């Protein structure tokens, strides 16, 4: 895990792009920390899984994507949504179960989606996304758009048959698909070193005929670079890639998790590895951005999240009239 801002990457990203990346990561972090607080008050219903600590992955990958591209996410989906451009206020309202939410309150945290943004949904099924992404990649290929599909999934999901067979299908069909294994060390309370019978998830790539890459998930630039290469190759017809991103999740598996199964890891990671801290010191030390630029973003983001929570709380819930609508297009 090196700390040099690779020149090619530095070259690719202008100030605006750097600021945008920072804004995305900061938005995710602020969103999650606020949901964490609000959940504790008891006002947010259901199961909520937070992405804090993992921001560099969603952000570094999605920075390469545009409207031709689709992503599929997991139960831990807020970060992917934000990085793919889903409206933050609508997301917050969705988490509160409000009619103004991304899914009119019908989906909740585990199902936030915005198909108009190419965000195919958080997914309550571990391993649910990779098959779908074979499909969005196939569509892009058939339509000749140059688009790619990206499946984000966890270390736990890397043991699910649906994920594994998707790797093979993507290779056999030579799809423009990227499989991003987010190895945050645990699936619920189970360590990935135990559940994944290989040194790295990326080691599985060879068995499915594609390159496997390991990146430091605390390092936005490392993710950005690896994803860029894979996405470029995919767009050019070079087929799929498996990227393993390694990092730590900052909160419990879901809100309420006591986390007796792990020890000091989180505090250490937060202190020494944190993606936001590292990004900040790197771009300032190399003179690409000023502290003041970043602090301004922090303030804007903080205001946005405040507004999102206020509006979400004030918004109306769906009503009986909504219960049976939108099951089908027509029935």
């Amino acid at each position: 895990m090196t700390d040099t801002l690779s020149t090619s990457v530095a070259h690719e990203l202008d100030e605006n792009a750097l600021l945008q990346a920072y804004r995305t990561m900061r938005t995710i972090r602020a969103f999650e920390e606020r949901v964490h607080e609000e959940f504790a008050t008891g006002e947010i219903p259901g199961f909520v899984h937070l992405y804090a600590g993992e921001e560099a992955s969603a952000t570094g990958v999605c920075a390469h994507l545009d409207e031709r591209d689709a992503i599929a996410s997991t139960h831990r989906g807020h970060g992917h949504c934000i990085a793919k451009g889903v409206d933050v206020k609508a997301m917050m309202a969705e988490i509160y179960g409000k009619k103004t939410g991304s899914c009119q309150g019908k989906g909740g945290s585990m199902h936030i989606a915005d198909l108009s943004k190419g965000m195919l949904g958080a997914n309550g099924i571990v391993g649910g996304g990779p098959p779908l992404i074979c499909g969005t990649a196939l569509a892009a290929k058939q339509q000749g758009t140059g688009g790619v599909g990206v499946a984000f999934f966890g270390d736990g999901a890397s043991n699910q048959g649906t994920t594994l067979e998707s790797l093979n299908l993507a290779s056999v069909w030579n799809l423009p698909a990227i499989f991003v294994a987010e190895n945050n060390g645990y699936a619920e309370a189970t360590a990935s070193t135990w559940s994944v019978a290989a040194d790295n998830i990326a080691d599985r790539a060879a068995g499915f005929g594609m390159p496997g890459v390991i990146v430091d998930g605390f390092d936005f630039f490392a993710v950005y670079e690896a994803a860029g290469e894979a996405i470029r190759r995919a767009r050019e017809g070079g087929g799929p890639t498996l990227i393993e991103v390694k990092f730590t999740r900052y909160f419990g598996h879901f809100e309420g998790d006591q986390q007796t199964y792990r020890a000091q890891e989180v505090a250490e990671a937060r202190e020494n590895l944190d993606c936001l801290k590292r990004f900040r010191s790197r771009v300032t030390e190399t003179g690409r951005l000023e502290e003041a630029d970043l602090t301004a973003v922090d303030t804007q983001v903080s205001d946005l999240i405040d507004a999102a929570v206020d509006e979400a709380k004030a918004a109306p819930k769906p009503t009986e009239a909504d219960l049976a609508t939108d099951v089908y297009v027509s029935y």
Partner: protein
Amino acid sequence: MARTISYREAINEALAQEMERDGSVIVMGEDNAGGAGGSGAEDAWGGVLGVTKGLYHRFPGRVLDTPISESAFVGAAIGAATRGMRPVAELMFIDFMGVCFDQIFNQAAKFRYMFGGKAQTPVVIRTMYGAGLRAAAQHSQALYPIFTHIPGLKVAVPSSPYEAKGLLIQSIRDNDPVIFCEHKALYDATGDVPEDSYTIPFGEANVVRDGDDVTVVAIGRMVSVAEEAAKALSSSGIEVEIVDPRTTSPLDTETILESVENTGRLVVVDEASPRCNLATDISALVAREAFGSLRAPVEMVTAPHTPVPFSDALEDLYIPDAQRVANAVKSVAEWKR
């Protein structure tokens, strides 16, 4: 112009006509062409029973063979459907749903609702069901009740070549996920089918035969079994009205209820296992909505609560036949309080 063609040909023609009409229609499944990577001919199979034969050469790049990875390729069809394609994926036997059901019932079926009405998933899953080919317990089931149970899915069960073509074209044009259940013992059945493209709307039953004495609702291949029974019954003075729902979800409850309001008697013929199946579904509907008209107990003719046996001697007993249908009809026709 109508000609006599087989159920297999009707399905093939529906696929071909829709592929011709709409470039977003693609077809995929294990050996749907056949021969990929081999040293011999491509389109070597055209599906395990030849249903997709010929499409591969006619529509280059649009008939995709797949590895044996039903979750991945059925899921891929679903994912592609959210992005402007109209994929028709083949789940070779309906019995294989167990390795890919999640993609169907938790993903495709729920997207629109979970995502607040903002998703559209026009995918068709063609699949083969039913007993009669001595294919035994894992290749002979009639699992459409399970799909019918799931909100968000539509389920078509064509009983004849005419229905097969019209329902499949509708399935492909439909904007919701459709499970299209082809009875494997019907592929060689023939019937009049228009050459031109046509659709049969979902949720519109077909009254196959008029009659005032007993309503028989029959699903899929059971329609012809019911017809056979009806002929025999007619000669003994019982006139049966046969209703073929054609789609089990949506279900044309109106036509069924109207018929029972006239006849006062109901027999449902369903090849599926007896618990929580279409026979119970339709019987319960009638017992709730048309109770006042019912003049006899409802009757249900179904498979027994057993896996499908292999031996022909047993399988022939397993499948509902015209005799059992006739007996059920007689019992409700003759029933007295």
